[in-house]
């Protein structure tokens, strides 16, 4: 539901370790609302979300500790550098860093820009700075809302490799996008909303 409008009903899916689910659908079909409802930012009118077989709200702490959500707006501060943004993001999780920040910035293609304030970077580079968080604190569950926005062809390849690696390592990914993603060898499922 958004503004008292029913966006979708009777939708159900299960995400298992190593699984990728790609949400598709035209603008306004409810992809963002569904992602926000799953992570608990938007209310659910009917239905439930379970984590490891238990209702989400009963294991909310574990669920949130396992979750990384990268929304529409990237969730980074434009007056801070990628390194400062990453340090804050990491402090908000309960994880030890999985790799040094510089390695992460190399992998998302921000080498040499780690100490430049985001306001001097392009929209795509800001996106990449937000994605670095997925590498340094690789929680099991990723919810990504239109992560391809503003990314160029190289950025798209970086993201596809990130997704494939995470799935191969047993992670779970729910991703909304209306761009085609090359996830052929990962067994990604597709769900279409709004038909």
């Amino acid at each position, binding site marked *: 539901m958004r503004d008292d409008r029913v966006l979708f009903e009777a939708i159900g899916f299960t995400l298992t370790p190593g699984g990728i689910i790609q949400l598709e659908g035209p603008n306004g079909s409810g992809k963002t609302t569904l992602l926000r409802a799953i*992570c*608990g*930012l*938007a*209310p659910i009118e009917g239905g439930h979300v379970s984590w490891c077989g238990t209702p989400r709200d009963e294991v909310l*702490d574990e669920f*949130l*500790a396992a*979750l990384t*959500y990268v*929304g*529409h*707006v*990237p*969730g*980074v*501060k*434009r*007056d*801070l550098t990628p390194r*400062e943004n990453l*340090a*804050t*993001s990491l*402090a*908000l*999780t*309960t994880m030890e860093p999985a790799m040094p920040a510089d390695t992460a910035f190399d992998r998302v293609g921000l080498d040499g820009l780690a100490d430049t*304030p985001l306001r001097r970077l392009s929209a795509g580079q800001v996106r990449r700075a937000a994605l670095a968080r997925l590498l340094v604190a690789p929680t099991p569950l990723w919810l990504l809302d239109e992560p391809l926005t503003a990314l160029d062809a190289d950025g798209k390849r970086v993201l596809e490799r990130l997704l494939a690696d995470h799935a191969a390592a047993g992670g779970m990914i729910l991703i909304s996008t209306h761009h085609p993603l090359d996830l052929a060898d990962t067994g990604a499922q597709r769900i279409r909303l709004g038909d």
Partner: protein
Amino acid sequence: MRLGQAFCAMLGRDIRLAIRQRGELAQPLVFFAAVATLFPLALGPEPALLERIAPGIIWVAALLAALLPMDRMFRPDYEDGTLEQMLLSPHPASVLALAKVVAHWLTTGVPVILLAPLIALFLQLPMEALPVLLATLALGTPLLSLIGAIGVALTVSLRAGGPLLALLLLPLYVPVLIFAAGAVDRAAAGFPVAGPIYLLAAMLVLALTLAPMAIAASLRISLS
């Protein structure tokens, strides 16, 4: 331990942001000085009159200066998505919100307290009332920040939240104003002031314990 790190990271980030946006840091300070100095210009420079109205003027100016940058507490975070990240952290949102309020007070309230002695001198406030003025500001301005944060959290998702915020907060600020300005007034007249000071301290303790939870709940409502 982890929670402490998260609290410090949030506090440090907001202070760093405030220092990078120096113009906004100066805004409440300039406003405080401007409001307080306009009164003697408008009313005339007789020391007896100024001495009488100084406690009230300083406190009204401090209150308005606190209200001015209040909206900045959560609105930028709401717009760039970092507020969502804060609420999705496994750490309690109330503690992280408290870190933001503390950072906001350190960057907007403390400068006003530091400037207050100069303004007090300018308005002919009796010297023996100055410690009481500083004590009421030290207890009162964090109280304004904590109460204000609840209002900002409730209105952050509204496009024209500013006027509504002022309307929402001013009645809640009235008790703080009455006791704080009253205490300074009594000190200037040479009466004991322990009563109103203790009351302000009690209100601050109450707000410190309850406001963070109210802020977190309000933010959840605003974001859903």
